[in-house]
């Protein structure tokens, strides 16, 4: 399957379920009635945007609809799409684009850090860049073997030490090795950890400070969040951001039916750009982020019909 069809398949599945819901609303009445607003609030909640956010967004939108005299559901939904898209923050191009960069992928257990690291390595390699992977997960069983497989798939070099060794020194060596081979993209996978574990968060801070000291290229911290995550995603992002000063976010597993609404709250509160989307387990299942498209994934994409 080609790149395009893969990611559209992932996202459309998400979007279609939503579109059906909203179509129902549209067909119910050409006018925007109470049922419409209720249904809209439900759809927003179901997207994991959060109960308060959903209520607030609907309130705001009702005001706008009255103010602007929006009469039909389609206009309202377009306005909503704009409103949500506007929550997302521009930027983050410097993290993976063009210029040299050292990127550390962080996040809770199982969010998709290693897989994403592998996919990004492949994409960058294909774009002609010199990539090196660093295995900063020296903790989880077989994490090293897992990243090695991805390095092989992407055809890039990997720097790893045995399990249990100090992750900071692995990072140090990776940067050194990257310098030696003239790498312009250093991608470092880190061990999954819950933001509630003070010890592990401290360990990560130490790793990052070692990397920053040693770095010859700009250092970027990217939080990987699973799209199925509910309201706790915001808490995760907050804690990781407090500890590490994040530069961007990647949302994975958008090939399921989860809509990834928590990304809106994360963008809103932490002003972090979303740099990539994960839409599957394959090498190519990586997608660029587009605010309107993402909002449409939550909302149904009426503009295109």
């Amino acid at each position, binding site marked *: 399957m080609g790149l395009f069809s893969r990611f559209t398949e992932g996202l459309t599945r998400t979007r279609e379920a939503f579109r059906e819901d909203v179509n129902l609303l549209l067909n119910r009445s050409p006018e925007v009635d109470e049922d419409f607003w209720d249904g809209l609030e439900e759809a927003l909640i*179901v997207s994991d945007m*959060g109960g308060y956010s959903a209520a607030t967004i609907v309130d705001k939108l009702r005001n706008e609809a009255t103010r602007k005299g929006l009469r039909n559901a389609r206009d309202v939904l377009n306005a909503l799409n704009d409103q949500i898209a506007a929550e997302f923050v521009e930027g983050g191009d410097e993290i993976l684009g063009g210029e040299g960069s050292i990127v550390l992928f962080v996040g809770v257990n199982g969010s998709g850090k290693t897989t994403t690291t592998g996919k990004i390595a492949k994409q960058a390699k294909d774009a002609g860049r010199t990539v090196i992977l660093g295995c900063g997960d020296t903790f989880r069983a077989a994490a090293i*073997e897992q990243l090695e497989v991805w390095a092989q798939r992407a055809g890039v070099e990997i720097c790893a030490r045995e399990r249990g060794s100090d992750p900071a020194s692995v990072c140090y060596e990776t940067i050194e090795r990257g310098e030696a081979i003239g790498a312009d993209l250093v991608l470092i996978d880190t061990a999954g950890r819950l*933001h509630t574990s003070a010890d592990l968060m401290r360990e990560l801070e130490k790793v990052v400070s070692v990397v920053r000291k040693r770095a010859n290229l700009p250092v970027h911290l990217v939080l990987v969040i*699973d799209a199925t*995550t*509910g309201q706790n995603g915001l808490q995760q992002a907050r804690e990781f951001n407090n500890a590490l000063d994040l530069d961007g976010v990647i949302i994975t597993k958008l090939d*399921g039916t989860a809509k990834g609404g928590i990304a809106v709250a994360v963008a809103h509160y932490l002003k972090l750009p979303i740099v990539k989307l994960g839409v599957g387990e394959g090498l190519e299942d990586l997608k660029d982020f587009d605010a309107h498209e993402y909002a449409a994934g939550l909302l149904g994409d009426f503009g295109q019909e």
Partner: protein
Amino acid sequence: MFDSLQDQLQEVFDDLKGKGRLTEDDIRVAMRRVRMALLEADVSFKVVKSFVAKASARCMEADVLDSLTPAQNVIKVVLDELTSLLGETDARLNLQQGKHPNIIMLVGLQGSGKTTAAAKLAYLLKGEGHNPLLVACDVYRPAAADQLQTLGGEIGVRVYRGEGKDPVKIAKDGMQYAIDNLCDVAIVDTAGRLHVDEEMMAEAESIKAAVDPDEVLMVVDAMTGQDVVNVVETFSARVDFDGVIMSKMDGDARGGGALSIREATGKPIKFISSGEKPSSLEVFHPDRMARRILGMGDVVSLIESAVKVQQQEEEAEATERLRRMDLNLNDFLDMNRQIRKMGGVGKLISALPGGDKMMSQGQVDAHALDRMEVIINSMTKQEREKPDLINGSRRARIAAGAGVTVTAVNQLLKQYSETRKQVKKMMAAYGDFDERPGRKGRPKKGGKKGKKGGSRGRRMAMPGMGGMSLADLKKIQEMME
């Protein structure tokens, strides 16, 4: 745009403090906030809706504790309701003694924590004296089998990896391996899969069909949001799992998915997994989970202590009456309720020596108490407290209210006075109520859970019945025939 939950919840209590009794309005306002709390805990939208409706109805009929504000009373009902919904079924592993091997299969989404959970389960079973085997059926994620093998090595549990890329074959070969190596439990770890991935769901079905597991457990990440319903419904329909392991409970996610899972599939949560250590798999406690989902620690502690105080007061009062050898009709009702909680008269009598025989010979009328309750219910408060007040015209009124004959009412009152006499005799036979030094003369606080009270070492006390024993109940039952 996104107000903090804590502030919102605080408002609930500020709004409602000191307003006295629960009104429909109180319930509605408090429930609005409960609804938000549940949504913020990731309980699925539809489940929140039906839960709030159900709990609101319960609030209307619930007893109100005077020591709590109306909002706190609402929260109390919500908490009780949540606890009971979360824990309605027996949540043990279905392992069959003597079967070799018992088979446990794990399924779930990618990254939910199946492999870690498999190792933890093996560790737990090993600690219980089993000889488990871990079977690595994830042939997709790079190094998944390595991960299981490493974990198995760390906890001293055998791991079967098999050959090739066919998880169905690996699973089947794994079962043979378990038999050959005298492993009495085989734990099949499968690849993470999306519920919408038709091919992968079919594969899970095939693995299940091939090994015919005794227990299929679905591993669900406690952080999962609204999508959990779609996921578990599909997994339930396709592989019909028996229970759930909630993973990553060491985080601060409120885990509202647990409630959604119960409501959407009826499947119980069996374990919670909290941490990366092999020992961090624990039995699921519905009450703790209910509190976590609701997330109002302070209020909940407050409610719990108020409930405790109330219980103690009620028990002390009942005990005091017994001490004065003065049983009233409310005590009759209490007894009936306690007995029903314990499974009814039938069960109670069966538990007594010779009780089974009595039951089978039809000597016990299991519904006598229920009939009594109907009659007592149509008495006024005063009449229940002072049955001596009940004269002829009152009897006629009570009979009409309960839809029984006056004879039935007379019979009840006769039973009551006989019971009272009997209780008096029993109490006299026990001698002084409190035998512990330094507490003479004070009524002891009910025989709650048989732990407190002076009946220790003498007779087993009945819960909430101030020192009465099973044997006494039997006598009462005999009198009522």
